[in-house]
């Protein structure tokens, strides 16, 4: 604080001396104008040498003051504070006072009372002007007053006449009066300068704070605009009062001032703010598009508001759909060989049955019962073929259908039907415990079947990768469905006896392109796609190691059992 006060005092002093300098032209002008007339008036009474020396001195001092003034003038046109403080001016002022006072004392004319009064008057006028002009800077003022008046007063007192004494006394009183007044003026200007400095300091502070605020807002805005998610802030009436660039891009338009509900119908719902992040439709630049929406109440500009963050899902959806499709094709490729074999079985029976009937008919060796049973056999095998083809078609199709309610056991049976033959010839047992009272679930049965098929294929590969054991089957795959009533979820567990997954790798099995299979054997997409499919249906796909091998668990939200009415 002391340091600050000292700084302020120094600044006040600097401004005072700068202010006094500003009046130098006035002083110089007064000197240049007054010196010749004074010389003229005194020329009869004072010896010419003395008078010329004195006049030259006055002019020289005036020129020196002018030089000082010009040398300290601000060059860029500013008043303060380029005018530097200069101790030279009080010195020059003192010199001027001395020159005038001592000069007049030396040039004192005892026989010319009119000139005595004239010189006294000139001194008093100069003192009055000095007090008026230099009062802002005490040292400059004192330097003149205390050097100009005392020598002449002293000379008057030495003369000793009555009127001389009277003149001296009035000069002393004038001096006192000037000193007193100057003191008051100086105090006032000091206060004015202090106020000015304080004011400037406040103004600078305010500007600095405003700059900092603007910089902070710029930084915040830069961050907000760098975010890929669309962010808008709503006022209490649901109108957009703030938006980031992603929001503009998503909407394809300026949203400011618009009610968000016009674009996001969900925003009109009363429980909108309370709903955790969910998928909604947003009317954007490219029509209705899916967005992930999260709303958080915030205090915005002193008012309660709502921050809404929207993530554009259309690209991710398209990617996901493409991945699901490509994984379908991949799994189709994987099972194509198996399916060809599968179809060849009924075809084989059909052809053999037809051929044998034809051949026996030609030999007259076929009776009606034989022909009938052969045709029945053929018909049955075509049904079997059709079933296989039905499954193939289901796999090639892009599935955009709406979610349906279905029994998960149907999917298990469907998936098993596709791989049962393969598993059987690979000596792998399949256990499917009955699941009575299992509630239905909601979603896409074909996709769930795809997930199950994928899990079954993985389980088969895990079992086949184990070293051979003699006697009994190679391994077992167990597909169990149960109802977790506590969480009201349907759990489908696919477990194998393949020895489990390396604990170091178990956390990564759902990562896209992660595979433990040999190069060229697995795409590394199956489990990640499966994960996405189950998540799409509101469920979870998880994995753990059981005593004999890996157990994959599909958890799906259970629906209430449909109440059946007896016919």
């Amino acid at each position, binding site marked *: 604080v002391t340091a600050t006060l000292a700084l302020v005092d120094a600044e006040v002093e600097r401004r005072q001396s700068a202010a006094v300098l500003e009046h130098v032209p006035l002083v110089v002008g007064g000197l240049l104008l007054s010196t010749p007339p004074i010389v003229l008036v005194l020329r009869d009474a004072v010896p010419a040498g003395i008078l010329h020396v004195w006049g030259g001195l006055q002019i020289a001092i005036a020129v020196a003051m002018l030089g000082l003034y010009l040398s300290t003038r601000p060059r860029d046109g500013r008043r303060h504070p380029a005018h530097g403080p200069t101790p030279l001016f009080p010195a020059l002022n003192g010199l001027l006072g001395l020159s005038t006072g001592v000069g007049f004392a030396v040039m004192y004319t005892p026989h010319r009372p009119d000139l005595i009064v004239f010189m006294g008057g000139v001194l008093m006028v100069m003192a009055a002007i000095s007090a008026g002009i230099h009062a802002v800077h005490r040292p400059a003022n004192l330097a003149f007053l205390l050097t100009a008046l005392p020598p002449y007063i002293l000379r008057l007192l030495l003369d000793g006449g009555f009127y001389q004494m009277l003149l001296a006394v009035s000069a002393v009183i004038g001096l006192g009066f000037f000193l007193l007044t100057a003191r008051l003026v100086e105090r006032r200007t000091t206060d004015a300068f202090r106020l000015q400095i304080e004011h400037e300091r406040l103004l600078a502070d305010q500007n600095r704070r405003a700059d900092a605020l603007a910089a902070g807002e710029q930084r915040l805005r830069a961050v907000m605009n760098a975010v890929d998610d669309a962010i808008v802030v709503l006022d209490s009436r649901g109108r957009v009062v703030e938006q980031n660039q992603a929001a503009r891009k998503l909407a394809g338009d300026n949203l400011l001032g618009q009610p968000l509900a016009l674009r996001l119908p969900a925003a009109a719902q009363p429980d909108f703010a309370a709903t955790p992040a969910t998928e909604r439709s947003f009317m954007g630049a490219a029509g209705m598009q899916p967005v992930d929406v999260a709303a958080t109440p915030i205090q915005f500009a002193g008012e309660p508001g709502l921050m809404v963050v929207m993530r554009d899902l259309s690209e991710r959806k398209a990617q996901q759909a493409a991945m699901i499709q490509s994984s379908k094709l991949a799994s189709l490729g994987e099972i194509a*060989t198996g399916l*060809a*074999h599968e179809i*060849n*079985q009924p*075809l*084989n*029976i*059909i*052809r*053999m*049955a037809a*051929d*044998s009937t034809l*051949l*026996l008919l030609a030999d007259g*060796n076929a009776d009606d019962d034989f022909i009938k049973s052969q045709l029945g*056999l053929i018909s049955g*095998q075509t049904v079997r073929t059709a079933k296989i083809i039905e499954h193939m078609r289901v796999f090639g199709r892009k599935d955009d259908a709406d979610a349906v309610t279905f029994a998960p056991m149907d999917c298990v049976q469907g998936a098993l039907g596709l791989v049962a033959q393969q598993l*059987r*010839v*690979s*000596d792998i047992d399949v256990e499917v415990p009955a699941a009575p009272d299992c509630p239905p679930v909601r979603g896409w049965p074909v996709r769930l079947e795809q997930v199950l098929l994928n899990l079954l294929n993985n389980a088969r590969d895990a079992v086949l990768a184990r070293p051979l054991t003699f006697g009994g089957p190679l391994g077992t795959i167990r597909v169990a469905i149960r109802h977790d009533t506590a969480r009201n979820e349907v759990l489908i567990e696919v477990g194998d006896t393949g020895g489990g997954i390396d604990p170091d790798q178990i956390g990564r099995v759902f990562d896209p392109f992660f595979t433990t299979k040999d190069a060229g054997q697995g795409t590394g997409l199956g489990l990640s796609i499966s994960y996405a499919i189950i998540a799409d249906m509101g469920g979870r796909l998880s994995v753990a190691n059981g005593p004999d091998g890996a157990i994959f668990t599909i958890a799906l939200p259970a629906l209430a059992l449909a109440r059946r009415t007896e016919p």
Partner: protein
Amino acid sequence: MSAPPCILLVDDEPLAVHTMARFLERTGFRIVTAADGIEALEQCRRENPAALVTDLRMPRGGGLELIAAARRDWPAMPVIAMTGFGTDEAERAARQAGADAVLRKPVAIGELALLLKNLTTRVPT
């Protein structure tokens, strides 16, 4: 030809075995069947069939193992393999294992019967 030649049919598809057996029995063969490789080898020991017809893909000792084992223990017995894969690799593998003929599914049963007749009469008993 006193007794009809005995043919061992091996396939894990019961209906396929049934269809073949039904026809071959009516065209002058005695048929014994097996559903997998191990059962087939037991039948070979018990019945000493004149020919073996087997599928390639089966549980418990696949067709290739069965063919190799039959070739080793009964070198004179003709072996016909049937494959549902319809690929050259499967056919080559079957021939390498020792099959005399390989038929691709769907099998023309008249051809099979003719083949069996030729193979069983050519071999002197």
